[in-house]
């Protein structure tokens, strides 16, 4: 026991000092403040060099190019400004990390939400066509993770036709398309068909991204999506009664 303690102490005292406030707060290295004086108190951080995360270091993101960062920050800021401080507090989101070519185990991804660390990592190089909507998609994952009991997947599955089955996980399928269907048939995108939680996130992101007229039109034409939209709206209202879609 004493030997173990001695070794532990030795490790502590010879480990190089990582005295970085951001690292201490969210456990992501190589970040710098981009903007912290925002109305809804979101803190925007960016990668000054690449970083690896996770137990197996399988999450990788590269440093952000200044030009891309300036351009994408405006879009991200505008998108996230629609969320109030109160709502963000309820869903436990505070830090937005901006970096490039984000991937998990070699698979590119638009964002990685972490409600425990109050952090959303966003890939600023993600497909321009869907980037703005995808931000809200990732926000929903934070909402879902923070309020797991509220979003019941068994209830959700019942909205679909009885023959339909989701894949076992979001990356165990080829259904990765993010383009919004012209003919919806219960799903906004191909990616909606991957898992129930991705479907919820796609519904949420479309409610936020599309205007009321477009949403109302979809509701009229697609009864399944009408039910799904109502479900998401009701649950979000339970989290924050003042939330405006």
């Amino acid at each position, binding site marked *: 026991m004493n030997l173990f*303690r001695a070794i*532990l*102490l030795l490790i*502590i*005292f*010879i*480990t*190089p*000092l990582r*005295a970085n*406030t*951001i690292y201490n*707060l969210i456990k992501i290295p190589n970040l710098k*403040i981009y903007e*912290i004086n925002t109305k809804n*108190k979101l*803190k925007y951080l960016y990668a000054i060099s690449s970083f690896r995360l996770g137990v197996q270091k399988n999450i990788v993101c590269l440093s952000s190019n200044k030009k891309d960062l300036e351009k994408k920050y405006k879009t991200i800021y505008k998108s996230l400004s629609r969320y109030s401080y109160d709502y963000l507090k309820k869903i436990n989101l*505070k830090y937005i990390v901006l970096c490039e070519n984000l991937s998990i185990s070699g698979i590119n991804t638009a964002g990685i939400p972490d409600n425990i660390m109050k952090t959303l990592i966003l890939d600023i190089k993600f497909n321009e066509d869907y980037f703005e909507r995808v931000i809200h998609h990732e926000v929903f994952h934070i909402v879902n993770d923070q309020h797991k009991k509220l979003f019941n997947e068994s209830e959700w599955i019942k909205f679909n036709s009885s023959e339909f089955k989701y894949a076992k996980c979001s990356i165990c399928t080829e259904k990765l398309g993010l383009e919004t269907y012209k003919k919806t048939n219960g799903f906004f995108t191909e990616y909606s068909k991957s898992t129930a939680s991705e479907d919820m996130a796609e519904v949420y992101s479309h409610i936020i991204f599309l205007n009321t007229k477009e949403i109302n039109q979809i509701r009229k034409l697609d009864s399944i999506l009408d039910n799904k939209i109502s479900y998401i709206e009701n649950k979000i209202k339970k989290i924050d009664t003042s939330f405006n879609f």
Partner: protein
Amino acid sequence: MIKKIKASTSEKIILIFLVTLFILTLGTYFVIKNECLFVKNFDPKNINFKNPKNIAILNVPCGNVVIELYPKVSPNGVKRFITLIQSNAYDDVAFHRVIKNRLVQAGDLEFGKKDFLDYGKIGTGKSGLGTIKSEIENEFNYVKGSVGLARTFKNDTEDSQFFIILQDEPLFEGEYTPVGKVIYGVELLNKIKYQRHSEYILRPDFISTFRMLN
């Protein structure tokens, strides 16, 4: 009869040089050893305070650090802090976590006391009074000298440990419960013992006393 030999000019110069060198060496030795020589110690008796009720005096190896507490910002946090100060609980407690020019942290009443220092557990000790809820709603600028309550990774785990920041830390707002700010003597905290390769300190400096002014 022994003939007196007069010292030559060069011998006299060498002698003067050696004496000067000796004095300088001795002087430098004491200057280096006394790390507190160039920092001002404040006597709270000579200062007029607007709210003397909210003034706490933290006595560290180099002198007095005068802290103004903010009960309006964090009522419960300050209440806990005052309770512990008034019971002299912080006396002889180590500054167990020190990052040069960034922060000093102390207040582990279980494993940080001078006579019961436990290097294996320091930083994890409790006060015995239980944890309190984080008070992070009110606006507070974490500027140099700000005093906050330390917590574990989770909110609502504040107990007795506190930190004082030695540089502005804007990201601390909304993360840590603020309890006050150093109004005199923040430079004394730069003299607290630190280690280059670790935030945790072997043979740390200790709080001598921590008292409320009134």
